[in-house]
């Protein structure tokens, strides 16, 4: 899959004039937002997964108690 990005990646040199003016702003914003999205999404997903596991365990425990 990464190989499909090489063409568009190389084509960046075509638009160097536009990118030259804003290169550090683009890099800073992109890097920061990538990290923020990764961390926030990971933490939120992990919390949801923990809650789901806890609910599932509670349900199983309740069923076992009822059977007894």
């Amino acid at each position, binding site marked *: *899959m*990464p*190989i*499909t*990005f*090489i*063409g*568009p*990646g*190389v*084509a*960046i*040199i*075509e*638009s160097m004039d*536009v*990118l030259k003016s*804003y290169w550090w702003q*683009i*890099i800073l914003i*992109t*890097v920061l937002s*990538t*990290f923020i*999205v*990764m*961390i926030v*999404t*990971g*933490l939120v*997903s*992990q919390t949801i*997964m*923990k809650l789901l596991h806890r609910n599932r365990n509670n349900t199983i425990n309740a069923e076992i108690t009822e059977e007894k």
Partner: protein
Amino acid sequence: MKDAIIAFITDSTFFYVFLTLITYELGIFLKNKFKMAIFNPMMISILLSIVVIVVLKIDISKYKQGTKFISFLLTPATVCLAIPLYAQFGGIPAITVAVIVITGIVGNLFAEVTLKLFKITDPVAKGVAIGTSSHALGTTKAMEIGEVEGAMSSLSIAVAGIITVILFSFFAQAL
């Protein structure tokens, strides 16, 4: 004579496919040899291809024409999501491409360390985090980490893409 040979080679469509594949293979070789994340095959391929294009003074439109067969598979996924946004709100394609490449490389290089640093250990959470933030390039890293991570990452790309298109239209009109 030298110019004629260069022109003969650079006029061939297969030269650009060959250039892309050989530089990518070189990137894979370097990554396997040095085992360092900085030797990202895609990044190495892009840099080496740019060097060749600049040194041989190749017209970039020829390169784009030659590599369209490789980029072909990328088009349906990106175009079906991006076209409605472009049509409605405009944008600078060069910046979009630059951001896509940077996001992917950052995710590919730093995803594992970042997730470890923030104690994100659940495989599903790891996959969702990588896929949402770093698209297909991050997914290659997620697949290296584990099967669940890779699957979740692939799924997250599609879901995040669709949600982005819907929410962006909404927020752009609201703000």
